């Protein structure tokens, strides 16, 4: 692993080889770009991969960030990005998971990294992706009665009604 993923056999990263050996089929694709390693994970197997990466030898104890991007033309539509970091080695890797266009859902990683709690709430609030098994999946930025998910590409930038207009 190290900084800037070391290449193992067949040009695959050590991390991919490790995951392929213990969880065959969980990693769908591997992209290396600008010194950053991205592993695309089969959505159903996200939790297994997360548990595996948390433990030794990779020890990705810190889930630095979890966010989403909306691609309305892609079949999976919502692409989640998990930025993992190892406190011990300083290594980094990004996991990529597609949540699906209709009824987007993935497993919550809160049991593995508790920090995901608010990140997943933010993704739910902003994109409408639901996280199975999340302990408290509530809107976090927008008011509880807000309609729609603002960071979706089909959500308009302007023209919302002014809130609290009834109080004037």
């Amino acid at each position, binding site marked *: 692993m190290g*900084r800037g993923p070391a290449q193992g056999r067949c040009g695959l990263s050590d991390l991919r080889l490790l995951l392929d050996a213990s969880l065959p089929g969980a990693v769908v694709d591997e992209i290396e*770009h*600008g*010194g*950053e390693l*991205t592993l695309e994970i089969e959505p159903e197997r996200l939790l297994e991969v997360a548990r595996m990466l948390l433990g030794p030898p990779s020890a990705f*104890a*810190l*889930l*630095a*960030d979890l*966010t989403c*991007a*909306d691609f309305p033309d892609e079949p999976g539509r919502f692409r989640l*990005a998990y*930025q993992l*970091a190892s*406190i011990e080695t*300083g290594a*980094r890797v*990004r996991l990529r998971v597609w949540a699906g266009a209709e009824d987007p859902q993935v497993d919550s990683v809160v049991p593995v*990294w*508790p*920090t995901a*709690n*608010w*990140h997943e709430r933010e993704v739910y609030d*902003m994109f409408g992706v639901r996280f199975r098994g999340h*302990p*408290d*999946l*509530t*809107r*976090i*930025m*927008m*008011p*509880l*009665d807000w309609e729609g998910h*603002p*960071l979706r590409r089909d*959500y308009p*930038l302007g023209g919302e009604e002014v809130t609290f207009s009834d*109080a004037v």
Partner: protein
Amino acid sequence: MPSDAGQDALGGGFPLATEAREALEVARREGRGLTETERAIAAAEATTPEEAVERTHAAEVAEDPGVNRPMLINLGPQHPSTHGVLRLITELDGEVVRDLHPVIGYLHTGIEKQCENKTYWQGITLVTRMDYLAPYSNTHAYCMAAERLLGMEIPERARYLRVIMSELNRIASHLVWLGTSGLELGAISVFFYTYRERDEALDLGEMISGDRMNSRYFQVGGCAKDVPPGFETALRRFIRRMPGRIDEYERLLTQNQIWLDRTKGVGILPPSELVALGVTGPALRAAGVDYDLRKAAPYSGYQHFDFQVPTGTAGDAYDRYLMRVREMRESCRIIEQALDGLPEGSHIADDRKVVLPPREELATSMEALIHHFKLVTEGFRVPAGEAYVAVESPRGELGCYLVSDGGPKPYRCHVRDPSFVNLQALRPMARGAYLADLIVIIGSLDNVMGGVDR
């Protein structure tokens, strides 16, 4: 305010409870119960403080005298000690916090959505508004993410200037933290001392960038301008005086019995739990975890400087105070080394497809004029891809995640703000603490609500 609002658990006809009522309806439609946070907000909004007191009294009379029912107190969002618009719904048992539910989003301005609709260089101005006490860190992460997508190398001088300004920003940010944290605990004089130096730091920022706050100095490709005349002398004077000034703050606080009593042993979590909660920065290092991105994954040439990363042992509010004070001293050392070794050369890359041409060329060169026009109206195009670049901001790991589709505007721009993540640790830290200590814990985490809500 209608007094029957408390009758219905979700407040019939009580305007504040509309949000909670809607939430219940949504939950019913979706065939699920209320979530923890929804229940807390609903309960807090369905009661006025008077009703809460009345109910607690009623419960005390009616129930077994040995049973203590928690009292629900809404703290914030407008409260002087919450460092901005943080709302905490606290369940109190006497003076002890049984549980608390942070409610955020009051400062949500949709900056990430705005960034998708602005060109890359317009986005720099927007991200300075996120963590408004660390504009240099925000722009540092954002510009480096764009540079990584562009595959761009920036001149050595620009890297040094970025280090200098980031460290000056760290000092200014820690000074605000120290002053306001002192205020909350009644150590009012510290505020006057720290704001004196903070003002000098802002003056220096004004000299170099033109802005005292929300400085937009870092540019994709380097820095917007070279250092103005007199800047180096002024900055050297500042860092020469600073250690003595830090001694002054320490004389006021480090051995101060009241300060010790209020901060020692407050807000402790084991290091493993802090990592699991994603806490970074001084709050993590105070617990003894040596994790600083300037050392763990050096960027902008931090590996060339000789500096220490202070770590604590107890991980309480006092250790967090010590960490920040020591970090200010180390920042002075870094700035001094950077000034001594400041390389000659350009402050910005010479790539006319990305970087604005020098102002003086516009009058004489047609090509420069065309480049300028294209860059200002359309912006530069960034190759498709994604990048996540993190820097060590005064509060911890500040990361910028950019997704590009090859156009002149980011397809997605997300900022991982340390304030947002660190705030999650507040709940486990405050459980079982006194209400008065809750204020200390909020202060010691040093959250900037602009960064939390973005």
